[in-house]
């Protein structure tokens, strides 16, 4: 019974990617449905599955016997491992998309060594400054508030890199090393730009929009 349940999940997932498993998935779901409606499974799918797997292992008869006798437990172990792996993979993919690294905020980018000299770890599409970026200038009039692990900050930095070639500079305001900036400057979101006149640009902006803002202070 448990094997049908496990098979329905596993083959159901695999059937999304391969037609080869759709027949198995259908039979497993049929079994699960019958069990859910308090009826006996009428296809002996669990036995067929066990025989199919153990039959292939008969080259190593002792191992085949081990698997045959403990098939249910082994199935449970595999399914738990499967779901844990699936969950961890999903979490990692989410982090990669949102935080640009697999471990989430505060995590290290696997492509980049730690500590680039600015206490900032940046994984901005492979652009990894190992020295303070060209556009960082403590004398610049426009302040740029950012924090580690902020993917939009990282994205904004790639825009700043492009603008740096045209001489645009900003004053780096690192929130992780200076947490008092959050309240002092009433920062709600990162990245945030604040001009010398107090004008704000909140969130990520593309090249044209950011250039337009910075041009007010050139």
């Amino acid at each position: 019974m448990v094997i049908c349940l496990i098979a329905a999940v596993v083959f159901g997932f695999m059937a999304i990617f391969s037609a080869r498993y759709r027949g198995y998935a259908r039979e497993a779901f049929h079994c699960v449905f019958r069990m859910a409606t308090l009826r006996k499974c009428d296809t002996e799918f669990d036995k067929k599955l066990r025989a199919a797997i153990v039959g292939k292992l008969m080259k190593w008869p002792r191992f085949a016997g081990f698997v045959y006798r403990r098939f249910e437990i082994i199935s449970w172990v595999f399914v738990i491992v499967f779901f844990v792996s699936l969950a961890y993979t999903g979490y990692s993919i989410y982090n990669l998309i949102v935080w640009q690294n697999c471990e989430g905020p505060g995590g290290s980018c696997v492509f980049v060594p730690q500590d680039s000299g600015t206490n900032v770890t940046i994984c901005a599409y492979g652009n990894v400054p190992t020295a303070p970026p060209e556009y960082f200038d403590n004398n610049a009039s426009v302040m740029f508030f950012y924090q580690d692990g902020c993917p939009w900050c990282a994205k904004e930095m790639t825009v700043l890199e492009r603008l740096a070639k045209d001489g645009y500079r900003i004053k780096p305001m690192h929130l992780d090393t200076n947490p008092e900036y959050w309240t002092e400057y009433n920062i709600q979101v990162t990245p945030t730009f604040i001009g010398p006149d107090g004008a704000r640009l909140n969130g990520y902006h593309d090249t044209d929009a950011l250039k337009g803002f910075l041009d007010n202070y050139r």
Partner: protein
Amino acid sequence: MALKVEKIRQDFPILTKPKPPIYFDNACVTMKPVQVIQAINRYYNEFPACGGRSLHRLGRMVTEEVEKARAIVQKFFGAKNPKEIIFTKNTTEGINLIANSLGLKAGDTVLTTDKEHNSNLIPWQVLGKKGVKHKILPSNPDNTFDLNGFENAMDKSVKLVSMVHTSNLDGVSIPAEEVIKIAHDNGALVLLDAAQSAPHKEIDVRKLDVDFLACSGHKMLGPSGTGILYGKYHLLEQLSPFIVGGDTVIDTTYTTATMEKPPERFEAGLQDYAGIIGLAEATKYLSNIGLRNISAHEAELNKKITDGTRSIAGLKIIGPVDPTLRSGIFSFNISGMDPHDIAMLLDRSAGIAIRSGAHCVHSWFNAHGMKGSARVSLYLYNTLSECDIFIESLTKIAKFIR
């Protein structure tokens, strides 16, 4: 004369593939030789028309070929007259035809053994609702036929003895000649279910003096969905038709029909002409090889398997241990193992095809409190080395998987 098995195997396309199956499910269906396949194709390629009706050249060719086929099958069974051969779909249809056409009435008794295939059990249960009694003769403890018990069971109310000639459960054959003689002495007719005997042993219906005999073509190298019902002509003449329609009548009005004589009376509608022609070719093929040679070959294979599996702990043979009493069938259980598991493991691990389950003899298994068995059924193209592989695989499964 020993069979030239390797030469025979060349006639079977599936057995000439690089990794042929080890096919031990011949009691269900047999493989088909190229000669049968070619005969079937000849119909479709050369004269794919309808027989017994149309007067054009193609129609006449079909009619002639079917009658030729009937004569070949008549000769195969030693029948007196080709009109005693009725082409059916299978043994089941043949038995049902007799059951529904014989005119059994309330109070009549039909006597069968206790290990009949469902096809020779259910028709009598159905007739039971009309008052026809069904008496079951128990077998001996080792599943052999109880001839004394049969004599005692025969009385004047028994109108029909309908028995499996060779059991698909365990391969045991009834002493047909003695059974028929006793039955006739008591005024009863005899119908033999020859599904498992006709493909494997010589049957001379006149020597046996059997009244009716039904068998399946697909169990004797013939095409699927073909069968033969033999009946003594004077008895067939008295039977009312089972299925009626086209070709069973000479003439009709809106309210009446003039029935054909046998065998056409029992061959309603367009027939499986390709199948009939292929079936005749199959019987020719078997005759050329010789059924005695086939029986001897199966006995040798069964002995090898029986001896080779003797040392497997917990293995129990269904039927007598002596392989000479079990035709080409080796039906068994291994304690602690589901027969379906055994069959599936043999298939997945070594490509060995056997049958598992109740083999359509549910009644016997239920009466003995068993779920089923695994069954090996051998035939002319199986080899001793296949038996060795089976023994080795089964031994491994019994040792490590249980």
